[in-house]
């Protein structure tokens, strides 16, 4: 028997809908351009981080020893996950591997972006182990003899591999159910470790982090919405710099792993917060600072990057959908129709394909309609350019969905910390399941209000980014801009409305 979490109430959903309506009316009633695309604008309308988090990240980035301590801690946990996954009990709720990986890490990771941007990448155990194994150094610059340092072929310098990995990971997670299998969880961790080592041993710098890792790309793109990043203190110092230590490194410090040049960075989603630039800059000009909203407007996304953002939206919604009672009914009915049996993997794969194709078609239709209204723009430029507006929708729903997992399921961590291998542990009794269900650490109304608030915020940021993108792509006539952006506003409303509906649905408890 499975336990169900209640979804947000109709009243909260209605409030979000009213807010969305007000935002749309305001968007089309404004008499002047927003000005948010201009470099002079002060700040990003994303979530603020406190000076405390900024100071913490700055000291982490500047100190190789602190970074190493963080890496060692994460690597120790990673090795414990592999050990418990392979040798611990197969009962998922009693084994540290699935609880730590899927309930705690996978959930907290998305929240960490709010406060630390791409900070997770700085202590990522896969990358740390791969670097140590290939470079044979714990923190200083290695000899480079452990890697062939091949250049990745130009055609492969896209993130299509990351798109495939993201969809594949969702298939493994929701279709094959590896979140409920400690052994499979450990196997997946080992597979990713092998890929990280292989890429680092064959290719220069960190091709795996930049082009393949779905976790890194997810963090990188979500981090664009958060007003925190590594940036120059004074742009003029970077403009006058000829040596580019931030990119090339020094005799002690390794070069930027994703080939970024701090003073010329137009898009920071590939920054893995390794701190090399902070440590190598001779002028001490790199800091963990607040981001300007205008960072978004200088970079034209590649098709693979736009598709990754759309895949993020589709996959986050699929996560929510597959945890509703209705999904099981649909999958079951579809399986009966096509004669699928057993684990219904064929049917699930079909459902997954539909959940990707539908938003892609809707988005494509919105872009097509925009093109009809403004024929001077190209389909490719609009398709890639507008994808930024999708990102806040995925991020907001991801946070709202994960909030339920975090608050309702995280109580299970206490038991597995005390007995990580689950030695002699029995499955949860009905009493324990009920206890976990009712042990919400905050009042339910507060949880619902936070979820509703996140949905409102995501919708608002999406509209602001859409407005900004329109100003970048089509400067000038305001009324024409508004007319052209209508189809994309409709897409944003549909996607937000669907995600809001998902939040109102009862959600199945993971374990």
């Amino acid at each position: 028997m499975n336990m169900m979490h209640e979804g947000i109430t109709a009243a909260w959903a209605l409030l979000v809908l009213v807010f969305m309506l007000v935002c749309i009316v305001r968007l089309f009633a404004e008499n002047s351009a927003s000005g948010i695309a201009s470099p002079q604008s002060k700040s990003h309308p994303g979530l603020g981080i406190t000076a405390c988090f900024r100071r913490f990240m700055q000291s982490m980035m500047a100190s190789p020893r602190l970074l190493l301590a963080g890496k060692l801690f994460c690597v120790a946990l990673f090795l414990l996950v592999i050990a418990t996954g392979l040798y611990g009990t197969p009962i998922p709720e009693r084994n540290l591997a699935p609880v730590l990986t899927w309930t705690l890490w996978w959930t907290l990771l998305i929240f960490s972006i709010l406060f630390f941007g791409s900070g997770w990448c700085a202590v990522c155990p896969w990358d740390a182990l791969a670097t140590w194994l290939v470079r044979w150094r714990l923190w200083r610059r290695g000899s480079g003899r452990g890697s062939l340092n091949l250049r990745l072929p130009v055609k492969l310098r896209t993130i299509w591999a990351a798109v495939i990995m993201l969809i594949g990971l969702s298939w493994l997670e929701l279709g094959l159910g590896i979140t409920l299998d400690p052994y499979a969880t450990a196997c997946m961790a080992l597979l990713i470790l092998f890929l990280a080592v292989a890429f680092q041993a064959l290719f220069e710098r960190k091709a795996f982090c930049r082009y393949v890792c779905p976790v890194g790309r997810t963090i990188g793109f979500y981090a664009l919405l958060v007003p925190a990043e590594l940036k120059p203190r004074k742009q003029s110092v970077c403009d006058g710099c000829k040596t580019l230590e931030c990119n090339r490194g020094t005799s002690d410090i390794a070069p930027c792993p994703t080939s970024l040049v701090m003073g010329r960075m137009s898009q920071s989603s590939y920054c893995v917060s390794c701190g090399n630039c902070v440590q190598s800059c001779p002028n001490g000009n790199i800091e963990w600072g607040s981001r300007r909203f205008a960072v978004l407007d200088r970079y034209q996304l590649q098709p693979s990057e736009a598709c990754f953002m759309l895949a993020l939206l589709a996959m986050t919604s699929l996560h929510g959908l597959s945890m509703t009672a209705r999904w099981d009914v649909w999958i079951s009915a579809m399986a009966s129709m096509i004669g699928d049996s057993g684990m219904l993997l064929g049917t699930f794969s079909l459902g997954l394909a539909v959940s990707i194709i539908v938003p892609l078609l809707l988005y494509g239709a919105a872009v097509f309609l925009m093109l009809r209204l403004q024929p001077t723009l190209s389909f490719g430029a609009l398709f890639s350019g507008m994808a930024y507006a999708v990102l806040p929708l995925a991020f907001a729903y991801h946070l709202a969905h994960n909030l339920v997992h975090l608050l309702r399921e995280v109580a299970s961590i206490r038991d597995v910390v005390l007995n990580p291998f689950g030695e002699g542990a029995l499955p949860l009794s009905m009493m324990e399941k009920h206890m976990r269900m009712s042990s919400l650490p905050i009042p339910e109304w507060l949880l619902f209000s936070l979820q509703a608030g996140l949905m409102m915020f995501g919708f608002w940021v999406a509209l602001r980014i859409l407005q900004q993108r329109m100003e970048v792509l089509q400067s000038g006539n305001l009324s024409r801009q508004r007319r052209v952006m209508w189809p994309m506003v409709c897409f944003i409303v549909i996607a937000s409305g669907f995600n809001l509906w998902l939040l109102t649905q009862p959600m199945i408890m993971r374990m």
Partner: protein
Amino acid sequence: MSVRSLINAALLLLLLIHASNAMAAHFARGVPSFGLNGNGGGQAQQSIISQVGNYQILLTIAPAFPEPGELFELRVGVMQMDSGLPYKGEMILSYRQGYWLSSASYAAGRQAAVNGEVRFPLRFSERDGYRISLQMQTANGQQELEFPLAVGRPYQSMPLFITLVCIALILLGVRGVQYVRPKEGVS
């Protein structure tokens, strides 16, 4: 399409949504879940919910983790999904040893379902992975369901071993190429 037909379609959709909401669900079909056996004084049991054609199947293995030489029970409950009626017919159980590349199939029993349920007592003497196959005759012909079962916990270190070997091969290969490279440069 008229406004009235649109409203009717919306109402029908709402009705369907409401009807489907009342039904229970499971996270991933065919994935084992674990619970306490109500009949066995707190003993762990393993359950797998699956589907074959129009039939929903509930497999229960008690105790949950059978050891080599230990007698365990495989309980199979089958009912029609649309009507909820229990399956009336015979079920044939067979097994193959090993998850991979194993073709020899052995008969394990044949029983007529009582109230849609059969119970097979089983015992495997070797620690290994097994593939259990269940066959049943339905109106749409013969249906078969196959699922894995671990007796003992085989091959626990295998993924770790394979990963370490692959990593070692890659690192050694790279070192080998690097060793050759400067010689080529000198000559």
